[in-house]
Protein backbone atom coordinates (compact mmCIF):
# COMPACT_ATOMS: atom_id res chain seq x y z
CA UNK A 1 0.00 0.00 0.00
CA UNK A 2 2.22 2.77 1.26
CA UNK A 3 5.36 0.85 0.33
CA UNK A 4 7.29 2.07 -2.68
CA UNK A 5 8.06 -0.56 -5.31
CA UNK A 6 11.74 -0.71 -4.42
CA UNK A 7 10.93 -0.39 -0.73
CA UNK A 8 9.80 -3.99 -0.82
CA UNK A 9 13.17 -5.45 -1.72
CA UNK A 10 15.01 -3.33 0.83
CA UNK A 11 12.56 -4.43 3.48
CA UNK A 12 12.86 -8.04 2.59
CA UNK A 13 16.66 -7.86 2.73
CA UNK A 14 16.44 -6.18 6.08
CA UNK A 15 14.00 -8.86 7.06
CA UNK A 16 16.44 -11.56 6.04
CA UNK A 17 19.22 -9.84 7.93
CA UNK A 18 17.03 -9.64 11.01
CA UNK A 19 16.14 -13.30 10.70
CA UNK A 20 19.81 -14.20 10.25
CA UNK A 21 20.61 -12.27 13.40
CA UNK A 22 17.95 -14.16 15.32
CA UNK A 23 18.31 -17.63 13.86
CA UNK A 24 22.05 -17.97 13.29
CA UNK A 25 24.03 -15.63 15.52
CA UNK A 26 22.76 -16.86 18.91
CA UNK A 27 23.90 -20.38 18.09
CA UNK A 28 27.44 -19.69 16.90
CA UNK A 29 28.85 -21.18 20.08
CA UNK A 30 27.06 -24.46 19.46
CA UNK A 31 28.05 -24.34 15.82
CA UNK A 32 31.71 -23.91 16.77
CA UNK A 33 31.50 -26.72 19.32
CA UNK A 34 30.11 -29.16 16.81
CA UNK A 35 32.52 -28.17 14.05
CA UNK A 36 35.37 -28.38 16.52
CA UNK A 37 34.48 -31.92 17.57
CA UNK A 38 33.95 -33.03 13.99
CA UNK A 39 37.05 -31.48 12.46
CA UNK A 40 39.24 -31.90 15.53
CA UNK A 41 40.53 -28.37 15.97
CA UNK A 42 39.26 -24.89 16.71
CA UNK A 43 40.97 -23.11 13.86
CA UNK A 44 39.40 -25.28 11.19
CA UNK A 45 36.09 -25.10 13.03
CA UNK A 46 35.89 -21.36 12.45
CA UNK A 47 36.41 -21.78 8.74
CA UNK A 48 33.79 -24.50 8.62
CA UNK A 49 31.27 -22.46 10.60
CA UNK A 50 31.87 -19.45 8.39
CA UNK A 51 31.22 -21.58 5.34
CA UNK A 52 28.09 -22.96 6.99
CA UNK A 53 26.86 -19.48 7.86
CA UNK A 54 27.22 -18.40 4.25
CA UNK A 55 24.99 -21.33 3.31
CA UNK A 56 22.63 -20.52 6.18
CA UNK A 57 22.34 -16.95 4.99
CA UNK A 58 21.63 -18.06 1.44
CA UNK A 59 18.96 -20.42 2.72
CA UNK A 60 17.56 -18.35 5.58
CA UNK A 61 14.32 -17.75 3.72
CA UNK A 62 13.77 -21.50 3.79
CA UNK A 63 13.94 -21.69 7.57
CA UNK A 64 10.37 -22.60 8.42
CA UNK A 65 10.33 -22.38 12.19
CA UNK A 66 11.26 -25.21 14.50
CA UNK A 67 14.49 -25.34 16.44
CA UNK A 68 16.92 -22.84 14.89
CA UNK A 69 19.86 -24.53 16.62
CA UNK A 70 19.05 -27.89 15.03
CA UNK A 71 18.61 -26.18 11.68
CA UNK A 72 21.97 -24.43 11.87
CA UNK A 73 23.78 -27.49 13.23
CA UNK A 74 22.52 -29.58 10.32
CA UNK A 75 24.17 -27.11 7.96
CA UNK A 76 27.32 -27.06 10.10
CA UNK A 77 27.51 -30.84 10.06
CA UNK A 78 27.22 -30.98 6.29
CA UNK A 79 29.80 -28.22 5.93
CA UNK A 80 32.14 -30.11 8.26
CA UNK A 81 32.03 -33.25 6.15
CA UNK A 82 32.38 -31.29 2.94
CA UNK A 83 35.37 -29.50 4.39
CA UNK A 84 36.98 -32.71 5.62
CA UNK A 85 36.44 -34.46 2.33
CA UNK A 86 38.30 -31.61 0.65
CA UNK A 87 41.05 -31.02 3.17
CA UNK A 88 41.56 -34.39 4.82
CA UNK A 89 40.35 -36.98 2.35
CA UNK A 90 42.06 -39.84 4.16
CA UNK A 91 40.44 -39.29 7.52
CA UNK A 92 36.86 -39.08 6.39
CA UNK A 93 34.61 -41.86 7.56
CA UNK A 94 32.00 -42.94 5.07
CA UNK A 95 28.93 -41.63 6.81
CA UNK A 96 26.52 -43.97 5.14
CA UNK A 97 28.39 -47.12 6.13
CA UNK A 98 27.95 -47.47 9.83
CA UNK A 99 26.06 -50.70 10.16
CA UNK A 100 29.10 -52.47 11.53
CA UNK A 101 29.55 -49.86 14.21
CA UNK A 102 25.96 -50.11 15.30
CA UNK A 103 26.24 -53.84 15.62
CA UNK A 104 29.10 -53.74 18.07
CA UNK A 105 27.80 -55.18 21.29
CA UNK A 106 28.14 -53.09 24.41
CA UNK A 107 31.02 -53.84 26.75
CA UNK A 108 30.22 -55.98 29.76
CA UNK A 109 29.95 -53.95 32.90
CA UNK A 110 30.42 -56.26 35.80
CA UNK A 111 31.91 -53.69 38.09
CA UNK A 112 28.70 -51.74 38.34
CA UNK A 113 29.18 -50.12 41.68
CA UNK A 114 28.71 -46.53 42.73
CA UNK A 115 32.37 -45.63 43.37
CA UNK A 116 32.69 -45.69 39.60
CA UNK A 117 30.18 -42.87 39.38
CA UNK A 118 32.29 -40.86 41.80
CA UNK A 119 35.38 -41.45 39.66
CA UNK A 120 33.52 -40.34 36.56
CA UNK A 121 32.29 -37.21 38.27
CA UNK A 122 35.83 -36.39 39.38
CA UNK A 123 37.44 -36.94 35.98
CA UNK A 124 39.16 -33.78 34.85
CA UNK A 125 37.88 -32.10 31.75
CA UNK A 126 41.04 -32.76 29.74
CA UNK A 127 40.57 -36.50 30.28
CA UNK A 128 36.91 -36.26 29.30
CA UNK A 129 37.81 -34.29 26.20
CA UNK A 130 40.46 -36.81 25.19
CA UNK A 131 38.08 -39.70 25.73
CA UNK A 132 35.40 -38.08 23.57
CA UNK A 133 37.99 -37.36 20.88
CA UNK A 134 38.94 -41.04 20.78
CA UNK A 135 35.37 -42.18 20.11
CA UNK A 136 34.62 -43.44 16.61
CA UNK A 137 33.17 -40.70 14.43
CA UNK A 138 29.53 -41.82 14.47
CA UNK A 139 29.44 -42.21 18.24
CA UNK A 140 31.28 -38.97 18.87
CA UNK A 141 28.93 -37.08 16.61
CA UNK A 142 25.82 -38.44 18.33
CA UNK A 143 27.21 -37.81 21.79
CA UNK A 144 28.22 -34.24 20.95
CA UNK A 145 24.86 -33.43 19.39
CA UNK A 146 23.07 -34.71 22.49
CA UNK A 147 25.31 -33.88 25.44
CA UNK A 148 27.07 -30.76 24.20
CA UNK A 149 24.64 -29.24 21.71
CA UNK A 150 21.58 -30.39 23.64
CA UNK A 151 19.48 -31.63 20.73
CA UNK A 152 16.66 -34.11 21.29
CA UNK A 153 16.72 -37.71 20.05
CA UNK A 154 14.21 -36.78 17.39
CA UNK A 155 16.24 -33.82 16.16
CA UNK A 156 19.41 -35.91 16.03
CA UNK A 157 17.64 -38.73 14.20
CA UNK A 158 16.32 -36.26 11.63
CA UNK A 159 19.74 -34.68 11.20
CA UNK A 160 21.64 -37.95 10.79
CA UNK A 161 18.89 -39.60 8.77
CA UNK A 162 18.78 -42.66 11.03
CA UNK A 163 16.01 -44.15 13.18
CA UNK A 164 15.63 -42.86 16.69
CA UNK A 165 16.56 -46.30 18.04
CA UNK A 166 19.92 -46.02 16.28
CA UNK A 167 20.51 -42.66 17.91
CA UNK A 168 19.75 -44.26 21.27
CA UNK A 169 22.05 -47.21 20.77
CA UNK A 170 24.91 -45.04 19.49
CA UNK A 171 24.48 -42.74 22.43
CA UNK A 172 24.48 -45.64 24.86
CA UNK A 173 27.59 -47.10 23.23
CA UNK A 174 29.42 -43.78 23.28
CA UNK A 175 28.56 -43.20 26.91
CA UNK A 176 29.42 -46.77 27.78
CA UNK A 177 32.93 -46.32 26.39
CA UNK A 178 33.38 -43.01 28.20
CA UNK A 179 32.12 -44.43 31.49
CA UNK A 180 34.45 -47.38 31.23
CA UNK A 181 37.45 -45.19 30.40
CA UNK A 182 36.78 -42.49 32.94
CA UNK A 183 35.57 -44.82 35.66
CA UNK A 184 38.37 -47.33 35.30
CA UNK A 185 41.33 -45.18 34.42
CA UNK A 186 41.67 -43.57 37.82
CA UNK A 187 42.05 -46.71 39.86
CA UNK A 188 45.59 -45.82 40.80
CA UNK A 189 45.38 -42.96 43.29
CA UNK A 190 46.54 -39.69 41.77
Amino acid at each position, binding site marked *: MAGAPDGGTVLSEKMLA*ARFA*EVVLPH*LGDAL*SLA*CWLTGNT*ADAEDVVQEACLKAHAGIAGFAGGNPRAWLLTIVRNASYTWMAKNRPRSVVAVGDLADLDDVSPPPDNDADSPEAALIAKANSAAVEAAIARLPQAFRETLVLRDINGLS*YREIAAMLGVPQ*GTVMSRL*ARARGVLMTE*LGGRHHEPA
Partner: protein
Amino acid sequence: MSPRENGPHENRPREDGLPQDPQDVKLMIHALVDGELDAAAALAVERRMAADPELAAEHARLVALRGAVASVPRPTVSDAFLARIAAIAAVKDPEDVEAAQGEHVKAEAQPSARQQQQGNVVAMRPRAARWFDSFDWRQMAASIVLTAFLASGATQWLATADNGAESFAVAVANSHRRSLLAATPVDIVSSDRHTVKPWLDGRIGVSPAAPDMAKDGYALLGGRVEVIGDRPMPALVYRHHEHLITLVAAPRQNEAKSVPVADDLSAGGFLLVHWTDDAFSYWAISDAERPALDDFVARFRAAIIANPAAGSPG
Protein backbone atom coordinates in the same frame (compact mmCIF):
# COMPACT_ATOMS: atom_id res chain seq x y z
CA MET B 1 8.50 -40.25 18.87
CA SER B 2 8.40 -43.13 21.29
CA PRO B 3 11.93 -43.99 22.29
CA ARG B 4 10.79 -47.50 23.02
CA GLU B 5 10.91 -48.72 19.49
CA ASN B 6 14.41 -50.01 19.32
CA GLY B 7 15.56 -51.80 16.24
CA PRO B 8 14.85 -55.43 15.66
CA HIS B 9 14.30 -56.47 19.25
CA GLU B 10 10.92 -58.05 19.73
CA ASN B 11 10.30 -57.73 23.41
CA ARG B 12 7.17 -58.73 25.14
CA PRO B 13 6.24 -55.76 27.26
CA ARG B 14 5.95 -56.41 30.94
CA GLU B 15 3.23 -54.96 33.08
CA ASP B 16 4.97 -51.62 33.40
CA GLY B 17 5.22 -51.28 29.62
CA LEU B 18 9.03 -51.31 29.60
CA PRO B 19 11.04 -53.65 27.38
CA GLN B 20 12.33 -56.86 28.89
CA ASP B 21 15.71 -56.96 27.22
CA PRO B 22 18.26 -55.66 29.77
CA GLN B 23 20.06 -53.62 27.10
CA ASP B 24 16.82 -51.94 26.13
CA VAL B 25 16.06 -51.12 29.73
CA LYS B 26 19.45 -49.41 29.87
CA LEU B 27 18.46 -47.37 26.83
CA MET B 28 15.41 -46.31 28.78
CA ILE B 29 17.65 -45.07 31.57
CA HIS B 30 19.58 -43.01 29.04
CA ALA B 31 16.28 -41.65 27.79
CA LEU B 32 15.29 -40.81 31.36
CA VAL B 33 18.52 -38.91 31.96
CA ASP B 34 18.01 -37.12 28.64
CA GLY B 35 14.51 -36.02 29.56
CA GLU B 36 13.03 -37.95 26.65
CA LEU B 37 10.47 -39.96 28.62
CA ASP B 38 6.92 -38.97 29.40
CA ALA B 39 5.82 -39.02 33.02
CA ALA B 40 4.38 -42.54 32.92
CA ALA B 41 7.48 -44.10 31.36
CA ALA B 42 9.76 -42.15 33.68
CA LEU B 43 7.85 -43.48 36.65
CA ALA B 44 8.14 -47.04 35.37
CA VAL B 45 11.89 -46.68 34.83
CA GLU B 46 12.38 -45.18 38.27
CA ARG B 47 10.52 -48.12 39.81
CA ARG B 48 12.79 -50.55 37.98
CA MET B 49 15.81 -48.66 39.23
CA ALA B 50 14.58 -48.77 42.79
CA ALA B 51 14.27 -52.54 42.53
CA ASP B 52 17.54 -53.16 40.72
CA PRO B 53 20.82 -51.77 42.16
CA GLU B 54 22.63 -52.34 38.90
CA LEU B 55 20.22 -50.10 37.04
CA ALA B 56 20.50 -47.53 39.79
CA ALA B 57 24.29 -47.64 39.46
CA GLU B 58 24.01 -47.16 35.69
CA HIS B 59 21.82 -44.14 36.33
CA ALA B 60 24.35 -42.72 38.79
CA ARG B 61 27.17 -43.21 36.28
CA LEU B 62 25.16 -41.52 33.53
CA VAL B 63 24.39 -38.52 35.71
CA ALA B 64 28.06 -38.32 36.66
CA LEU B 65 29.11 -38.56 33.03
CA ARG B 66 26.68 -35.86 32.01
CA GLY B 67 28.27 -33.57 34.58
CA ALA B 68 31.76 -34.47 33.39
CA VAL B 69 30.92 -33.83 29.74
CA ALA B 70 29.24 -30.55 30.63
CA SER B 71 32.46 -29.42 32.29
CA VAL B 72 34.46 -29.74 29.07
CA PRO B 73 35.30 -26.19 28.01
CA ARG B 74 33.65 -24.99 24.83
CA PRO B 75 35.18 -22.87 22.13
CA THR B 76 34.36 -19.24 22.67
CA VAL B 77 32.89 -17.04 19.99
CA SER B 78 35.40 -14.23 19.68
CA ASP B 79 34.22 -10.74 18.81
CA ALA B 80 36.15 -10.84 15.57
CA PHE B 81 34.53 -14.11 14.55
CA LEU B 82 31.09 -12.81 15.42
CA ALA B 83 31.87 -9.76 13.28
CA ARG B 84 32.90 -11.99 10.38
CA ILE B 85 29.64 -13.89 10.57
CA ALA B 86 27.47 -10.84 11.17
CA ALA B 87 29.07 -9.29 8.09
CA ILE B 88 27.59 -12.05 5.95
CA ALA B 89 24.17 -10.52 6.43
CA ALA B 90 25.38 -6.97 6.83
CA VAL B 91 27.05 -6.58 3.43
CA LYS B 92 23.78 -7.42 1.77
CA ASP B 93 22.02 -4.61 3.54
CA PRO B 94 22.43 -1.33 1.66
CA GLU B 95 21.40 0.77 4.64
CA ASP B 96 24.14 -0.64 6.79
CA VAL B 97 26.73 -0.11 4.10
CA GLU B 98 25.54 3.47 3.77
CA ALA B 99 25.74 3.86 7.50
CA ALA B 100 29.27 2.55 7.40
CA GLN B 101 30.26 5.35 5.11
CA GLY B 102 29.55 7.85 7.87
CA GLU B 103 32.61 9.46 9.38
CA HIS B 104 32.06 8.24 12.90
CA VAL B 105 32.66 4.72 11.72
CA LYS B 106 36.27 5.44 10.86
CA ALA B 107 36.86 6.37 14.43
CA GLU B 108 35.32 3.10 15.55
CA ALA B 109 37.39 0.99 13.23
CA GLN B 110 40.62 1.78 15.08
CA PRO B 111 39.83 0.51 18.55
CA SER B 112 38.67 -2.67 16.93
CA ALA B 113 42.02 -3.05 15.20
CA ARG B 114 43.67 -2.75 18.59
CA GLN B 115 41.26 -5.29 19.93
CA GLN B 116 42.37 -7.75 17.31
CA GLN B 117 45.97 -7.42 18.46
CA GLN B 118 45.03 -8.12 22.04
CA GLY B 119 45.44 -11.84 21.76
CA ASN B 120 42.52 -12.37 19.50
CA VAL B 121 42.79 -15.92 18.26
CA VAL B 122 41.05 -15.42 14.96
CA ALA B 123 42.99 -12.40 13.84
CA MET B 124 46.28 -14.08 14.69
CA ARG B 125 45.73 -16.90 12.29
CA PRO B 126 47.31 -16.49 8.88
CA ARG B 127 44.22 -17.74 7.12
CA ALA B 128 42.00 -15.34 8.99
CA ALA B 129 44.41 -12.52 8.29
CA ARG B 130 44.17 -13.17 4.58
CA TRP B 131 40.47 -13.14 4.93
CA PHE B 132 40.60 -9.76 6.61
CA ASP B 133 42.89 -8.40 3.89
CA SER B 134 40.41 -9.23 1.23
CA PHE B 135 37.78 -7.40 3.15
CA ASP B 136 36.78 -3.90 2.19
CA TRP B 137 37.18 -1.62 5.20
CA ARG B 138 33.67 -0.34 4.75
CA GLN B 139 32.26 -3.79 5.11
CA MET B 140 34.51 -4.33 8.06
CA ALA B 141 33.27 -1.14 9.63
CA ALA B 142 29.71 -2.08 8.82
CA SER B 143 30.17 -5.36 10.55
CA ILE B 144 31.56 -3.62 13.60
CA VAL B 145 28.59 -1.31 13.73
CA LEU B 146 26.29 -4.28 13.33
CA THR B 147 28.12 -6.19 16.03
CA ALA B 148 27.70 -3.26 18.36
CA PHE B 149 24.00 -3.41 17.69
CA LEU B 150 23.92 -7.15 18.13
CA ALA B 151 25.79 -6.94 21.38
CA SER B 152 22.87 -5.08 22.82
CA GLY B 153 20.46 -7.66 21.45
CA ALA B 154 18.79 -7.65 18.09
CA THR B 155 15.35 -7.13 19.50
CA GLN B 156 16.46 -4.25 21.60
CA TRP B 157 18.03 -2.72 18.56
CA LEU B 158 14.66 -2.82 16.90
CA ALA B 159 12.83 -1.79 20.02
CA THR B 160 14.88 1.26 20.78
CA ALA B 161 15.03 2.39 17.20
CA ASP B 162 12.38 4.99 17.41
CA ASN B 163 9.32 5.26 19.54
CA GLY B 164 6.62 3.36 21.32
CA ALA B 165 5.11 2.14 18.09
CA GLU B 166 8.34 0.35 17.22
CA SER B 167 8.49 -1.50 20.52
CA PHE B 168 4.83 -2.33 20.19
CA ALA B 169 5.56 -3.76 16.75
CA VAL B 170 8.35 -5.87 18.23
CA ALA B 171 6.02 -7.12 20.94
CA VAL B 172 3.46 -8.03 18.29
CA ALA B 173 6.17 -9.81 16.31
CA ASN B 174 7.32 -11.77 19.35
CA SER B 175 3.77 -12.81 20.14
CA HIS B 176 3.26 -13.88 16.58
CA ARG B 177 6.45 -15.94 16.61
CA ARG B 178 5.45 -17.54 19.89
CA SER B 179 2.06 -18.43 18.46
CA LEU B 180 3.76 -20.11 15.49
CA LEU B 181 5.78 -22.29 17.86
CA ALA B 182 2.86 -23.08 20.17
CA ALA B 183 0.75 -26.20 19.80
CA THR B 184 -2.08 -24.06 18.50
CA PRO B 185 -2.00 -20.42 17.47
CA VAL B 186 -5.46 -19.71 18.87
CA ASP B 187 -7.17 -19.99 22.25
CA ILE B 188 -10.65 -20.24 20.75
CA VAL B 189 -10.96 -22.20 17.54
CA SER B 190 -13.76 -21.03 15.35
CA SER B 191 -14.39 -19.62 11.95
CA ASP B 192 -17.60 -18.05 13.23
CA ARG B 193 -17.38 -14.49 14.45
CA HIS B 194 -20.48 -15.14 16.55
CA THR B 195 -18.32 -17.51 18.57
CA VAL B 196 -15.06 -15.60 18.55
CA LYS B 197 -16.48 -12.19 19.49
CA PRO B 198 -18.40 -13.34 22.58
CA TRP B 199 -15.42 -15.38 23.71
CA LEU B 200 -13.13 -12.37 23.54
CA ASP B 201 -15.83 -10.22 25.13
CA GLY B 202 -16.16 -12.65 27.98
CA ARG B 203 -12.41 -12.77 28.55
CA ILE B 204 -11.31 -9.20 28.29
CA GLY B 205 -14.41 -7.15 27.62
CA VAL B 206 -13.47 -6.00 24.14
CA SER B 207 -13.66 -7.63 20.77
CA PRO B 208 -12.95 -6.35 17.31
CA ALA B 209 -14.90 -7.19 14.18
CA ALA B 210 -14.04 -10.72 13.18
CA PRO B 211 -15.22 -11.16 9.62
CA ASP B 212 -14.55 -14.54 8.07
CA MET B 213 -13.03 -13.83 4.69
CA ALA B 214 -12.62 -17.42 3.60
CA LYS B 215 -14.11 -16.60 0.22
CA ASP B 216 -11.26 -14.11 -0.28
CA GLY B 217 -8.68 -16.69 0.73
CA TYR B 218 -8.32 -15.54 4.34
CA ALA B 219 -9.99 -18.07 6.61
CA LEU B 220 -10.68 -17.08 10.20
CA LEU B 221 -9.04 -19.68 12.43
CA GLY B 222 -10.02 -18.19 15.76
CA GLY B 223 -8.87 -15.74 18.37
CA ARG B 224 -6.58 -15.43 21.35
CA VAL B 225 -5.73 -12.94 24.02
CA GLU B 226 -2.42 -11.11 23.77
CA VAL B 227 -0.86 -9.25 26.65
CA ILE B 228 1.27 -6.44 25.33
CA GLY B 229 2.68 -3.78 27.61
CA ASP B 230 0.61 -5.23 30.50
CA ARG B 231 -2.65 -4.66 28.61
CA PRO B 232 -4.68 -7.64 27.47
CA MET B 233 -5.95 -7.21 23.95
CA PRO B 234 -7.78 -9.34 21.42
CA ALA B 235 -5.99 -10.99 18.53
CA LEU B 236 -7.57 -12.72 15.54
CA VAL B 237 -5.77 -15.38 13.55
CA TYR B 238 -6.34 -15.88 9.84
CA ARG B 239 -4.85 -18.41 7.49
CA HIS B 240 -3.79 -17.51 3.98
CA HIS B 241 -2.43 -20.54 2.11
CA GLU B 242 0.46 -21.77 4.29
CA HIS B 243 0.82 -18.51 6.19
CA LEU B 244 -0.78 -17.36 9.40
CA ILE B 245 -1.79 -13.75 9.83
CA THR B 246 -2.21 -12.45 13.36
CA LEU B 247 -4.33 -9.33 13.72
CA VAL B 248 -3.91 -7.61 17.06
CA ALA B 249 -6.63 -5.07 17.80
CA ALA B 250 -5.52 -2.72 20.57
CA PRO B 251 -8.42 -0.63 21.91
CA ARG B 252 -7.69 3.02 21.07
CA GLN B 253 -6.58 5.16 23.93
CA ASN B 254 -6.82 8.91 23.89
CA GLU B 255 -3.13 9.50 23.46
CA ALA B 256 -2.76 6.98 20.68
CA LYS B 257 -1.64 8.47 17.41
CA SER B 258 -4.18 8.20 14.63
CA VAL B 259 -2.95 6.22 11.66
CA PRO B 260 -5.85 6.28 9.20
CA VAL B 261 -3.65 5.17 6.31
CA ALA B 262 -2.00 1.78 6.66
CA ASP B 263 1.62 2.01 7.70
CA ASP B 264 4.07 -0.65 6.51
CA LEU B 265 6.56 -1.88 9.06
CA SER B 266 8.68 -4.89 9.77
CA ALA B 267 9.95 -6.36 13.00
CA GLY B 268 11.76 -9.49 13.98
CA GLY B 269 11.76 -10.81 10.44
CA PHE B 270 8.02 -10.38 9.96
CA LEU B 271 6.05 -7.86 7.98
CA LEU B 272 3.52 -5.66 9.76
CA VAL B 273 0.78 -3.34 8.70
CA HIS B 274 -0.52 -0.83 11.23
CA TRP B 275 -3.63 1.30 11.00
CA THR B 276 -6.36 2.70 13.22
CA ASP B 277 -10.08 3.22 13.07
CA ASP B 278 -12.44 4.83 15.57
CA ALA B 279 -12.26 2.03 18.08
CA PHE B 280 -9.08 0.07 17.56
CA SER B 281 -5.45 0.36 16.68
CA TYR B 282 -4.78 -2.60 14.38
CA TRP B 283 -1.56 -4.49 13.84
CA ALA B 284 -1.52 -7.18 11.17
CA ILE B 285 1.57 -9.37 11.13
CA SER B 286 2.61 -12.32 9.01
CA ASP B 287 5.44 -14.09 7.30
CA ALA B 288 3.40 -13.90 4.11
CA GLU B 289 4.61 -11.70 1.27
CA ARG B 290 3.93 -7.98 1.44
CA PRO B 291 1.31 -7.98 -1.37
CA ALA B 292 -0.69 -10.73 0.36
CA LEU B 293 -0.61 -8.91 3.67
CA ASP B 294 -1.64 -5.64 2.04
CA ASP B 295 -4.46 -7.43 0.27
CA PHE B 296 -5.59 -8.93 3.57
CA VAL B 297 -5.63 -5.53 5.24
CA ALA B 298 -7.56 -3.95 2.38
CA ARG B 299 -10.17 -6.69 2.44
CA PHE B 300 -10.43 -6.65 6.22
CA ARG B 301 -11.02 -2.91 6.28
CA ALA B 302 -13.56 -3.20 3.48
CA ALA B 303 -15.35 -5.99 5.36
CA ILE B 304 -15.64 -3.87 8.48
CA ILE B 305 -17.01 -0.90 6.58
CA ALA B 306 -19.46 -3.12 4.73
CA ASN B 307 -20.71 -4.65 7.95
CA PRO B 308 -20.22 -2.19 10.79
CA ALA B 309 -22.48 -4.25 13.08
CA ALA B 310 -19.78 -6.85 13.22
CA GLY B 311 -17.28 -4.23 14.20
CA SER B 312 -18.80 -2.54 17.20
CA PRO B 313 -16.36 -2.70 20.04
CA GLY B 314 -17.26 -4.32 23.31
